[in-house]
């Protein structure tokens, strides 16, 4: 079974530039997550999709971050303009979501963003 695919693996940009990350979840997984993991911290949920609808984006900095999930499959996360504090690993995950909780999530390898 193919895992969650993310690209690029690494990205270095200057502050105030824009950047986009791409995620392809496991086939058939209804739920897709984007997490931000700052060095030394646990992952923080940015946005959760159920098919192509947003379930939770309460911690997404909407003035600069945006995300979409095309046709309920692939997803892109964009930052515009980037700030130094956006330097982090951006993790994408997906799960079957049986609706009752307790469904494990499968994670991609992440995109390491460095803003200079």
């Amino acid at each position, binding site marked *: 079974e193919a*895992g*969650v695919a993310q690209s690029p693996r690494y990205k270095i940009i200057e502050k105030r530039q824009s950047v986009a990350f791409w995620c392809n979840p496991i086939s058939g997984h209804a*739920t897709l*997550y984007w*997490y931000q993991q700052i060095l030394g*911290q*646990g*992952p*923080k*949920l940015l946005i*959760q999709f159920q098919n192509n609808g947003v*379930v*939770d984006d309460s911690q997404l900095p909407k003035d600069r971050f945006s995300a979409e999930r095309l046709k309920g499959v692939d997803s892109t996360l964009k930052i515009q303009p980037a700030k130094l504090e956006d330097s982090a690993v951006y*993790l994408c*995950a997906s*799960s079957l*979501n049986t*609706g*009752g*909780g*307790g*469904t*494990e*999530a*499968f*994670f*991609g*390898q*992440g995109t390491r963003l460095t803003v200079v």
Partner: protein
Amino acid sequence: AQSVTQLDSHVSVSEGTPVLLRCNYSSSYSPSLFWYVQHPNKGLQLLLKYTSAATLVKGINGFEAEFKKSETSFHLTKPSAHMSDAAEYFCVVTSPGDKLTFGTGTQLKVEL
């Protein structure tokens, strides 16, 4: 609302000795709980999960965890540490709707 507290940010053990990584949770629901491991420059991998079945859960690589509702704990253990166990470990709680809330992580160091 839900939250997870990992009581130790760093744990150091000698190879061949037991491992104990502590996790306490808070949840308004009957929780599902997970432990994930993250090796350097690798993605997060599921070690084990508790979903209201048996309270003692066995996972991969000899790890296990016990769900204790009275103590709101879900500690991770392994009888004998191996060098390859050195990594960061995350305790995760979920709710209906599958929102995952992560702890801050425990860095496990295994020494010869």
